């Protein structure tokens, strides 16, 4: 008796320890395996095993078993019928623990070949609330190892195990839901950042499969007829092959996708249970579960997403809520991408129309302009011809006719210069912006007091072809002057965009109405009458674009016009100057920005620089440099004075904007050379060579 009490007490303690250990395990797979180990270790049993009831509650299926015997039986899918002759089947059916011994009156012959040493067995139902979820078997090598009173002690442990199993299942479900939610959020975040529909759908199926660890995902969109859902993207090789095959499913038919779209609700298909579905898609042979989720935006079904798993029962009704969130994100992303597509198409259409309109407008203006400028030539020649034939040539009339021909021809040549000049090859170099601006203003006769410059020290240099930039700036300044501007303010500063200068040219002239502004860049468009060719701004646009710059125009009627340009920014370097044989230079120029730069560049060299504008007394020098756009002295007068003193042969004319006609003119005056103004130490060295 004492031994029995001691044995029972030990059993109770072991049961308590086992229960304590079991209830701390949350992982369902670990829980079962460790449970059988803990039970065997604590009680010194030969074997323990845990059975779960199947869906139909017909069989108890072995889920964990001690040792090699347990593993073998699990692999053999060991199961016992509920209510059958087995201990487990009976304990489940009766919801009671049972004991079997191979001794005494009810001796049982244990014949499980995996457990040959079993001499006693106890089977205990696993009950949670009112439900039996399975049973626990414990087996001993001892005969009569269990007594009836032991059932209560071990049932308590079995009850704890049942609760632990339930907790573990709940934990597993919560964890799974959390994982699905996180994946849904990740999918949502990832897909909504993709705005190109052609990229969005393939990337979406990749993101879904990778985030959820799924076998396959595909996105179907409803076609234009509204009759079919067409596969637009599918995961992996199978998906690509199906898309290439033009895989589509009729809406409203028996297919998961068709039904999901027509009913606008999620559907699940599993290949287990009473409503077992046989997945037959040859591209996806391993699918065992599928869920179809409608893609709905603004109450409108756009298509559906299919997600497929190679696991049986991979999805349950609870998953619909979680995965629907992902489908909602996807629907929003598809809608956004479609809107962007539509916007892009609309923009392309507008652009095509605008280009066509601009070309038509430019061609019409050009035809009109050229027609009007060439017509007087042909008309006058025809008339002269008639007069000569009639022998009625009047000299005064003839002179007038020749003047008309000449004037028409001059206007046409001006157009040629604007058209061809602007497209002439550009030679970008470091250019002092203040100098090209002053040259442009001088060329176009802009009064000095009208032009106000504010140039940031950090923005002194631009990379451009100086001749072309003078042309572009000249056109802009001339437009301002012709618009009646009294003040033209030019400010230059480093742009926030790396490597660029921001040049703002503001005038207080008449400004433009919107309809005029919209045509301002069109060739041959002008509001300034028939003497203008309307090529100033288009030529400026061409020059600035060729210089890798940008130009924009803002204007308001009666409030003036602002031109904003972005040009590549240059910076001076400290290269040493090689003066060659030149020991002294006479610079004939105004005291302007370029003269100051030139003097600065020569600092530190042995060259003696003298600057003067005195025509009566030219200081002696090896080389005389003259700025073509000198304002304080008329250039031809200066050249005449230099000729008279015999100094013109050592005179080089420097120009910011070189012109072949003027080069010829200056060379005929006897100048040594006409060349581009140097703006860098390297160019000064070149000049002095």
């Amino acid at each position, binding site marked *: 008796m004492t031994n029995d009490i001691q044995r029972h007490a030990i059993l109770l303690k072991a049961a308590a320890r086992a229960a304590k250990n079991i209830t701390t395990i949350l992982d369902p797979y670990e829980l079962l395996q460790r449970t059988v180990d803990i039970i065997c270790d604590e009680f010194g049993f030969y074997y323990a095993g845990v059975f779960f009831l199947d869906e139909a509650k017909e069989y108890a299926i072995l889920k964990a078993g001690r040792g090699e015997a347990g593993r073998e039986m699990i692999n053999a899918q060991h199961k016992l019928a509920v209510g059958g002759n087995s201990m487990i089947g009976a304990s489940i059916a009766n919801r009671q623990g049972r004991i079997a011994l191979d001794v005494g009156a009810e001796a049982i012959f244990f014949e499980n070949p995996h457990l040959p040493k079993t001499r006693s067995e106890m089977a205990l139902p696993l009950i949670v609330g009112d439900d039996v979820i399975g049973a626990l078997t414990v087996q001993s090598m001892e005969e009569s190892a269990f007594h009836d009173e032991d059932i209560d002690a071990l049932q308590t442990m079995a009850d704890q195990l049942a609760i632990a199993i339930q907790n573990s299942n709940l934990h597993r479900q919560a964890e799974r839901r959390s994982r699905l939610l996180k994946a849904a959020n990740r999918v949502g975040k990832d897909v909504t950042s993709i705005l190109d529909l052609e990229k969005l759908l393939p990337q979406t199926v990749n993101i879904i499969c990778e985030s959820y660890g799924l076998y396959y995902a595909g996105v179907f969109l409803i076609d234009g007829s509204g009759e079919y859902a067409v596969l637009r993207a599918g995961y992996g090789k199978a998906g690509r092959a199906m898309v290439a095959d033009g895989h589509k499913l009729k809406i409203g038919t028996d297919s998961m996708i068709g039904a999901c779209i027509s009913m606008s609700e999620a559907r699940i298909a599993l290949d287990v249970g009473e409503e077992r579905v046989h997945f037959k898609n040859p591209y996806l042979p391993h699918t065992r579960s599928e869920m179809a989720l409608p893609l709905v935006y603004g109450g409108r079904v756009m298509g559906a997403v299919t997600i497929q798993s190679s696991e049986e029962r991979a999805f349950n009704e609870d998953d619909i809520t979680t995965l629907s969130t992902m489908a909602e994100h996807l629907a929003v992303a598809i809608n956004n991408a479609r809107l962007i597509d539509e916007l892009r198409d609309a923009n392309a259409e507008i652009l095509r129309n605008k280009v066509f309109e601009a070309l038509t407008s430019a061609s019409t203006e050009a035809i009109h302009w050229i*027609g009007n400028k060439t017509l007087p030539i042909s*008309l006058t020649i025809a008339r002269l011809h008639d007069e000569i034939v009639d022998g009625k040539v009047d000299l005064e009339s003839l002179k007038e006719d020749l003047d008309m021909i000449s004037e028409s021809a001059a206007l046409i040549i001006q157009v040629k210069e604007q058209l061809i000049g602007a497209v002439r090859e550009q030679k970008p170099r470091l250019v002092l912006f203040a100098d090209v601006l002053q040259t442009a203003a001088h060329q176009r006769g802009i009064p000095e007091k009208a032009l106000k410059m504010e140039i940031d020290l950090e923005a002194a240099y631009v990379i451009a072809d100086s001749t072309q930039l003078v042309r572009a700036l000249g056109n802009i300044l001339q437009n301002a002057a012709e618009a009646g501007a009294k003040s033209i303010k030019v400010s230059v500063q480093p742009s926030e965009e790396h490597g660029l200068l921001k040049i703002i040219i503001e005038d207080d002239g008449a400004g433009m109405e919107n309809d005029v502004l919209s045509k301002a860049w069109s060739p041959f468009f002008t509001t300034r009458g028939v003497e203008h060719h309307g090529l100033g701004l288009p030529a400026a646009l061409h020059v600035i674009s060729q210089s890798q710059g940008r130009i924009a125009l803002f204007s308001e009627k009666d409030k003036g016009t602002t031109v904003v340009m972005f040009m590549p920014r240059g910076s001076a370097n400290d290269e040493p100057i090689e003066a060659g044989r030149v020991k002294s230079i006479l610079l004939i120029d105004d005291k302007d920005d370029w003269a100051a730069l030139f003097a600065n560049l020569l600092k530190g060299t042995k060259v003696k620089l003298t600057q003067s504008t005195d025509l009566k007394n030219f200081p002696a020098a090896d080389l005389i440099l003259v700025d073509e756009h000198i304002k304080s002295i008329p250039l031809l007068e200066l050249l005449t004075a230099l000729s008279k003193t015999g100094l013109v042969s050592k005179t080089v004319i420097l120009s910011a904007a070189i012109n072949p006609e003027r080069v010829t003119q200056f060379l005929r005056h006897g100048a040594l050379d006409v060349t581009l103004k140097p703006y860098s130490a390297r160019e000064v060295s070149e000049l002095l060579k």
Partner: protein
Amino acid sequence: MTTVLLVDDEKLILRSLEKTLLRAGFDVLSASDCKSGRGVFTRNMNVINIAVLDLNMPGFDGLPKSGAGLDLLADLKKQKPSLPVVILTAYDEVTKAKDAVSGGASAFFVKGREQGLVELILRLLKVAG
């Protein structure tokens, strides 16, 4: 003597046409836009037998306007419905030609064949009696 009102903003074309018409024996009154054209016509309505108007030129507000010649056409026809009017243009444009005819123009003439204009004027005056 037949008097022609000639309105064109292209001064070289205006002068060249003027010389051709003078040489053909017409008297020519000229103007360079709608406003001055109307002024010249109003002052000389009784002596002007025919008007030759450029299609595109400054309108009555002095600003360049496509089809301004049709505005002047309407104005002149209002003052003198029997006036034959020729619309001049630098290039063919069927729509504008139709507009000109429906506005009461007697002819639409594409610039370039000056002698053709002289012949056209003579023919129109003959029809007008």
